């Protein structure tokens, strides 16, 4: 009781987190109906689906069993070939969320990125995304390629790739990152499933995960303020002079951290390369400046 009187902020901090966790748990128990989810990979590297497998609290098993009905994904589904694409077509008849990973290759009518062969006809990534996006309830572009073009659209861009929001005429929620943090994907989807779409910023990113810059919450921020800078990798000071992109990249990496909250790039002595920023990787080069 005495502590509460001394500092009410400290006490409310503990309660706020608990409140949010309790709300998430109670909401997840309330709804029995699972919404269908199509996870479409266009011109990408499968990095985001692999990142999603590393999720915890909730983990991928809970996500698949209790939150969504993942009908189509080229990496995780059991069916293959034409039978797999039939599932995709069947899901289009229902209510579903579309998640796109990878940029849209547009050269030669999208023929640089073929995702299926159905009735002796090649289905391009461009065609499949267009087909699904027309009917989807929500469209999420997960990863930097889908959100901004990313490495797929990097110079010289031989496949003429563009981002999903550029390709589609409808609202697309951007969840960038290379790869995207599993918690950001599941968090955004959970908000959509249990409530509605989350609060978005001017670039259509969820504010809860992309609200502050890495520089704002960086563990080496005090070194920056004092003007102490690392001269080579491995030193403990601020890596700003080595070309850190923390000040222009908005994510919650410093507080959430990666690999089940073990570590993150700056904690591991590498400067931020701005992977969740528009223009990555061309505009973010050089990644380290000596």
């Amino acid at each position, binding site marked *: 009781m005495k502590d509460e009187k001394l500092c009410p902020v400290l006490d409310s901090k503990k309660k706020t987190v608990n409140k949010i966790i309790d709300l998430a748990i109670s909401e997840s128990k309330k709804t029995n109906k699972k919404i269908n989810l199509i996870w479409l990979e266009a011109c990408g590297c499968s990095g985001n689906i692999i990142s999603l497998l590393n999720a915890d609290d909730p983990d991928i098993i809970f996500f698949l069993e209790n939150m969504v009905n993942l009908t189509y994904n080229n990496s995780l589904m059991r069916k293959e070939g034409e039978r797999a694409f039939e599932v995709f077509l069947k899901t289009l008849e229902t209510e579903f969320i579309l998640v796109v990973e990878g940029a849209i290759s547009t050269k030669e009518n999208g023929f640089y990125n073929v995702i299926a062969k159905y009735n002796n006809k090649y289905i391009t990534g461009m065609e499949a995304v267009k087909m699904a996006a027309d009917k989807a309830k929500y469209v999420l572009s997960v990863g930097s390629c889908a959100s901004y073009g990313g490495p797929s659209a990097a110079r010289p861009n031989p496949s003429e790739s563009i981002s999903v929001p550029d390709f589609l005429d409808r609202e697309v929620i951007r969840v960038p990152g290379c790869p995207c943090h599993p918690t950001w994907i599941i968090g955004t989807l959970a908000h959509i499933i249990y409530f509605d779409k989350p609060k978005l910023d001017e670039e259509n990113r969820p504010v809860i995960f992309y609200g502050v810059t890495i*520089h704002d919450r960086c563990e080496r921020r005090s070194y920056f*303020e*004092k*003007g102490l*800078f690392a*001269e080579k990798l491995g030193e403990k000071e601020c890596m*700003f*002079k*080595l*070309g*850190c*992109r*923390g*000040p*222009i990249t908005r994510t919650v990496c410093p507080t959430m951290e990666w690999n089940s909250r073990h570590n993150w790039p700056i904690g591991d002595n590498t*400067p931020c390369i701005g992977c969740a920023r528009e*223009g990555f990787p*061309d*505009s*973010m*080069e*050089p990644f*380290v*400046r*000596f």
Partner: protein
Amino acid sequence: MNLKFNEFSRLNYYRYMEMISVYPWEKNYYRNLYYKEYKKLYFKRFKNNNLKEFTLEELSYYDGSNGRDSYVAVDGIVYDLSLEATWGGGTHFGLYAGKDLTSQFKGCHQDMRSILDKLPKVGVIKE
């Protein structure tokens, strides 16, 4: 204590307050104020002095690599971007420091003087 609040006495005052403060957070608060003031004064030095003249060759030395300062010229005036948060390692969205970037600046920021006014000036480009 009869202190006249010009910049230097302010520095002394913050140092004094830091010394006599009992609580760590209070000490920290005054230490931060001190460093903020110190930084301001440090850059004011460049403003008050006669501006140095740079040739483009001399300017190219200050490209931000190897911990050097990063200077950039816009409209003939050389600005110090060493502590500008968006210029990590002397680079900014594919641009490198140590050059005259007038056209690039106008291409992206139009004629936003407010950006330039905040930056410390270190010199002018020699014709």
